[in-house]
C-alpha cells in the first residue's frame, strides 16, 4: 500500500482549483467541431464540384487562409489547415497556399482580386461585425469561401462544416454562394444542409 499525505494532496489540488475559478477575458473558444484536416479534405472535395472553379483558378487553385490578427487559435488553425492542404489537388489542379491577416474589407477585396484567390478559408476568431464586413467584401467576388467555425456559414461564407451525430455535415449558404460566384452541383447540394 502506498500511503498518502492528505494535506500535501490538498496543497496540490487547491492552486489548481484557482485555475477554474479565475475569470478569463481572453476570448471565447469557438467551436471547431470538425477536425481541421478533415475540413480541408472536405473543402477540396467540395471545391471540385464548383463548376466555376476551373475558370476561376486558371490552372492553379490559390487557397488563402484568412486569420485574425493576434489571435492564438486563429493562427493555430491556419497552420493546421496549411499543413493539411500541402501537396493536395482540387479536381486535378495543383494548389498554391497562403495566409492573409484580416485588416478591413477593402484590403480583403483587394487581396482576393489581385491574388486571384480561388478558395478563401476563414480561421476562427472573427466576431459578428467582422463577419459582416467579410461578407460584404466577398460579395461580387469570384471566390469559394468556407469557414472553420460552423456558425460562420450563417453570415459570411458559402460553405461550412458541422458535426452531427459524430459525423461531419456539409453546410451551404446558397445566398453567399451565388454572391461569390460559386456554382455547386445539385448532387452536392443533396448531401448538404442548405441555408437559403
Amino acid at each position, binding site marked *: 500500500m502506498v500511503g498518502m499525505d492528505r494535506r500535501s494532496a490538498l496543497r496540490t489540488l487547491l492552486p489548481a482549483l484557482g*485555475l*477554474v475559478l479565475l475569470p478569463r477575458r481572453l476570448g471565447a473558444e*469557438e467551436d471547431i467541431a470538425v477536425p481541421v*484536416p478533415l475540413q480541408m479534405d472536405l473543402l477540396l472535395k467540395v471545391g*471540385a464540384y464548383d463548376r466555376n472553379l476551373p475558370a476561376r483558378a486558371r490552372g492553379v487553385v490559390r487557397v488563402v487562409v484568412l486569420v485574425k490578427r493576434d489571435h492564438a487559435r486563429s493562427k493555430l488553425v491556419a497552420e493546421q489547415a496549411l499543413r493539411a492542404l500541402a501537396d493536395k*489537388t482540387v*479536381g486535378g*489542379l495543383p494548389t498554391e497556399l497562403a495566409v492573409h491577416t484580416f485588416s478591413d474589407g477593402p484590403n480583403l477585396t483587394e487581396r482576393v482580386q489581385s491574388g486571384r484567390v480561388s478558395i478563401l478559408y476563414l480561421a476562427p476568431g472573427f466576431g459578428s461585425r467582422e463577419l459582416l464586413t467579410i461578407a460584404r467584401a466577398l460579395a461580387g467576388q469570384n471566390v469559394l469561401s468556407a469557414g472553420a467555425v460552423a456558425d460562420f456559414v450563417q453570415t459570411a461564407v458559402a460553405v461550412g462544416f458541422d458535426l452531427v451525430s459524430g459525423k*461531419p*455535415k456539409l453546410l451551404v449558404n446558397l445566398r453567399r454562394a451565388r454572391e461569390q460566384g460559386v456554382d455547386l452541383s445539385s448532387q452536392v447540394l443533396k448531401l448538404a444542409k442548405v441555408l437559403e
Partner: protein
Amino acid sequence: MRAFARVGFLALALGAGTARAEEPRDTTDLEGLLETTVVSAPSKTAESAALAPATSVVLTAEDFKRYGIKSLDEAINFLGRGMVVEKDFQTGEIGARGVLLTSDFGSHVLLMVDGHVLNEQWSGTAYYDRTTAVPFELIDHIELVLGPGSVLYGSNAMLGIVHIVTKRAKDFQGVHVYADSEASLAAPGSTLRGAAGFGRQFHFGETPAELVFEAEYYTQSGPTFDFGPQDYGPDSVTMDVRDYDVNPADRKYPPGIWGGRGNDAYYMRAPSAYLKVRVGDVEFSTRAAVSKRTEPTDSGNFDDPASYQIDRWLHGDLKHTLQASALVKLSTRLYADAYDYNQYWTSNGASDCLAGQNNGCLWRLRGAANSVGLEPQLTLDWLEDGRLVTLVGVDGRYNRIRSDVNYFDNVTGVSPGAIGPDSPTEIDIAAYVQQTYWATRGLGFNAGARLDIDELYGSAVLPRAAVVLMPWRGGTVKGIYSEAFRAPTAFDIYYADPTTQIPGGTSLEPERVRSGELAFEQHFGAQLIELSLYYSKWRELLLGTPASDEEIDAAFARGELEDGIDEAVQIQNMSRLTSYGMDIGYRGSMAAGRLNYAIGITEAFARREEPDGFRARLAVMPHTFGNARVAYDLGAGLPTLALAGRYVPRRPMSDYPHESGDFADAAVELRLHVSGPIARSGVSYGVGATFLSATTGAYSIGSETLPNGEIERMPTDQFRLGASLAYDLPL
C-alpha cells in the same frame, strides 16, 4: 500580411498551364468523407476515428431514430461492434471481445457522459440498460472504444470505454416532447416513456452561450412470466414450510413451493434529467437520475414488490478551456458526484436471516459515494500546427464512501445493528502524459502513460503506444499496445455479510490487462471495411472465491461470521485470463445517403485460468456475435424503413447459482422499424416490432431444479410491438 506560397505537387505545378480540372462524375468520394466518424475519447482530442490510437465505433442518433433504439443495450447490440450486452431481466451485463465477467456490475467498462465518469466510486458500477438514465433524445452519439483505455482515464477501462456525447443546442433547438411505448405480446407487459426537452443558443452579454435540457420518465411493468415450481422443502432453521408467494390472491403453488405467476414484482421506474449550459469557454453539465426496479426472482420470497433496488445519482461538471497561445491550451475540469444505492431484499425464511429472526427479515444493503475532483490539463502544440502535441494532466479526487448491511426482523422491524459499517475516505491522485507526433501526413505516433496513486490499493502505471500508418489512399493500418486496470473498490475491500461473505481486505491488488492490437481499415468512396486483430492477457482478476477453513476460522475470530456458518466467500485476486480474436465491420451508404447498411462480426476466444491450473470458458459470453442492419429513406416526407438484426450463438449458461455446464440457446433478434414525419405538423412517428428467437436467456433461476430435474432458465420477452411520437417546435 504574411504571404507565402507552398506549391503543391511540383510536377503538376510545372505543368499548370496545361492542367485541366477534372469535374468528378459522382459524389461517392464526398459521401465517403461525410461518413467519416469523429471521436474524442481515445486521445481526449476530436479526431477521425481512423487516426485515433484505439479501435472506435460510433453509434449515431440518426441510427437510433432509424431503428427505434431507446436504450444503451439496444444501441450496443444492434449497432455496435466488439461489445455485447446480455440481459438478466432488466440488467444488462456488458462484455467485449470474448470477455464478459458476470456480476461485475459493468465495472470493467468505463462509462462516461460528456467526459464525466458514471462508474460510481463505491463499487465501480455502471449500467448499460435503461438504468443508464441519460435522457435518450439528448444523446448525439455514443463512442465505443474497444480495448484497454486507462491511459487517460484510470480505473475501469479494461474492456473499453463507452462515451455518451450529448447534443449541442444547435442540434436541439426549440421545444421537444416525446412519448413512446412498447407492449410485450407473448407475455403481457408494457413500457411507457415520456420526455420533454429544450435547447437554445443565445448571447450572455457579448459572449455566445447555449443551453440544452431534457427530462424523461421511464416506467416498465412486466412482462408477466410463469416461474417454477421449485421445491425447497422446509426451512433449514425452523423446519417449517415457507410461504414464498406474498400475494395469496394469485398463488399458484402450495406453501413450500417456490414459483407461480410473476405479475406483481417486475417493474422499473426511472426518472432522469440532464442539463448542459455553455457560456463562452465555460461549460457546466449536471445529471440527476433515479432507478427503482425489481423482478420476481430477486427476493427470498417470490414475486415480492417490497423487494427492490434503487440507485440515485447527482453529478455536476464544470469545464473551462483557455487557448493561451498557439502553443499552449489549458483545460480545467471541476467535478462532483453524489450517489447512493439501496437494495431491499425480503424473505419469509429464517434460513435467509440472522439467528433468532425466525419469521424472516428484510435485508438491506446500503452504499453511497460522494466525490469531488479537479482535473487540470495542459496541451502544448510545439510546432503550432498539430504535428507534435503533448498533453499533460493531473486528476485529483476526494471520495467519501459509506456502506452497511442490516437485517430487519419481519415481526419487530428491528435490526440488531448495522453489519460491516464502513465510511472510508480516500484521495486518488493521477498524472498522465500523452505525446502525439505526425512524422508525415501518413505516419503518426501516439505514446502515453498514466500513474494512479490511491489510498485504498496503492499505485498503478498504465502505458499505451500506437502507430498509425496510411500507406495508400483510403487505407489505414494501426498497431496498438495498451494496458488498463480496475482498482479494487470499497465494496471489494470492505463488504461483509455474516452469513455469506468475508471482507476482501486491504491487501487486494488491482486487476490488470495488457493488450496488443493490429487494426486495418479501407474506405472505398462511401463504403468502409474495418478489421481488428487482438490478443490480451488479464491477471489478478478479482473473484468471489470459497474461503478456506483457515480463512473462515480467522473470520470467526474477527467476528465477521455468524456462529454455525461453515461456508463463505471472499473476494480474492484469483484468476488469469487470455483472450484473442478479431472484429470485422463493413458499413456504407448509397443513393446520396438514403440507403444505409452495416454489418459487424466479432469472433473471440477467452479462457480463465485459476491458480490450480483449472481452465474454463467464460460463462454467458459468446465466442461469436454480430449484427447487421439496413435502412432506406423513401424521401419527400415518406417514411424510413429499417431492419436490424443480431445474432448470438450457443454460450455457457451463467455459473451462478448452478455450475451446470449447460448452454444457452442461440438467439436471433430482429427489429423492423418504420419512422417518418407527419407533414408540416412538427410531429414525427415511429412504429416497430422486435422478435427474439430464443425462449430463454443465459441466466438460471433459483438454486433448486424444476420437477423434471432441469435447471430453470430465465424467460425472454420474445415479441414486442412499439410506437413513438415526437413533437419538435423550433423557436
